[in-house]
């Protein structure tokens, strides 16, 4: 399993593209939104939490089809499916690699972008916390979506249609944590719900994704 994780990480780093791209996309969202809605600091402060979370969602979505597509094309996915590793574990490792290469840098970059969007000072800590807890859920839900569309030639658009509705609870609770945190209100409930979604998704979805991959490889 560790070998698989390291292999995926190495591929992501060396092949270029995926690693920096979603981070750059996240940056683009944070730059484009103020250009669209105007530079008034009060407006930006109001929407900063939501925009950052939506940006994280879209940045994660952008890199999803890379999780399985290349391995499916060159046949490594068949080898992985017939290897002694449980397929659910393979999915979990691939999702973890996806999170380490896209989610984690995004979490690290988010405070810088929050400056651009004039997030209130109290919100920074909660932005980091909510993204750190929430983005792993985005990766595993996305891996599930990618496992459904892996056999398709042009699955990209369909992937968005399938995955974005599944992202809704994560988005709502994640943005709520930042909003309440920035306003200095209690954040216990949304934070707990966010953590519960992440934990539940990591527990259940690798199995569902494994089932979908088996159906696709058959």
């Amino acid at each position, binding site marked *: 399993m560790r070998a698989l994780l390291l292999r995926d990480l190495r591929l992501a780093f060396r092949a270029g593209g995926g690693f920096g791209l979603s981070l750059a996309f996240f940056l683009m969202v944070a730059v484009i939104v103020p250009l669209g809605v105007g530079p008034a600091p009060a407006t930006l402060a109001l929407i900063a939490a939501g925009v950052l979370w939506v940006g994280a969602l879209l940045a994660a979505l952008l890199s999803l089809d890379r999780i399985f597509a290349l391995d499916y094309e060159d046949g490594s996915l068949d080898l992985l499916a017939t290897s002694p590793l449980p397929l659910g574990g393979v999915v979990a490792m691939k999702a973890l690699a996806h999170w380490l290469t896209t989610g984690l840098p995004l979490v690290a970059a988010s405070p810088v972008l929050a400056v651009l969007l004039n997030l209130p000072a109290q919100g920074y800590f909660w932005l980091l916390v909510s993204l750190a807890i929430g983005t792993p859920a985005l990766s595993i839900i996305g891996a599930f979506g990618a496992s459904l569309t892996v056999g398709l030639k042009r699955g990209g658009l369909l992937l968005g*249609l399938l995955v974005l509705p599944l992202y809704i609870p994560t988005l*709502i609770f994640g943005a709520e944590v930042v909003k309440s945190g920035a306003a200095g209100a209690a954040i216990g409930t949304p934070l707990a719900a966010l953590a519960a979604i992440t934990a539940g998704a990591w527990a259940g979805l690798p199995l569902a994704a494994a089932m979908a991959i088996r159906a696709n490889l058959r």
Partner: protein
Amino acid sequence: MSIWEYANPKKFMETSALALPWLTGLSAAFLGAGLFWGYFLTPDAAKFGSTVKIIYLHVPAAMMAISAWMMMLVASLIWLIRRHHVSALAAKAAAPIGLTFTLIGLVTGAIWGQPMWGTWWAWDPRLTSFLILTLFYFGYIALWQAIEDPDTAADLTAVLCIVGSVFAFLSRYAVLFWNQGLHQGASLSLDKQQNVSDVYWLPLLACIAGFVLLFVTLVLLRTRTEIRARRMAALLARERLA
């Protein structure tokens, strides 16, 4: 005699052919009677005027939109566990019907909301969760359309339906948390105290029965179509081989 008998497509076709005319007649009768009774024979409500009458389309459509997804969930589970093709095809057949009911619910709600709330749309929890349900229907139908191999498509959509149900349920509670509501509470419940008064309730029950029957009729009809399409595909494939 067990229900699994109907997993046999031939048996299913025979039985559904017998049942369809009756179901069609019954749903037409219930819908016709319920809607006529509701629209022409009930008084206007004190606060809402005659706009209250949209309840006879809105409430049954909304109920069936959710019930249709539940039916798809059960059919998907049966397909995954017992591999009955009729079950997978029934789930496929139900999706566009459920989507239509969802859209009817949203549109009638908007038409009612404009004079009553002064807006076509509000980000109210119920409205929002219904919109999200629409998205789930779109995704489900799109996945069926996208995959060529019928068995793979059935497997993948079944898995999506199960996972989607969990997340649709989560979304429902997430949006409750996210915004306060404008929509009124339940107008039907077994607790008699909370019900709307009998004058409106009885025709509403008739309409709900009509919508349930309509749904069953349409699902049977569409499943029969799917089975015939599957048979056609098999025949064509055989001809190509010969």
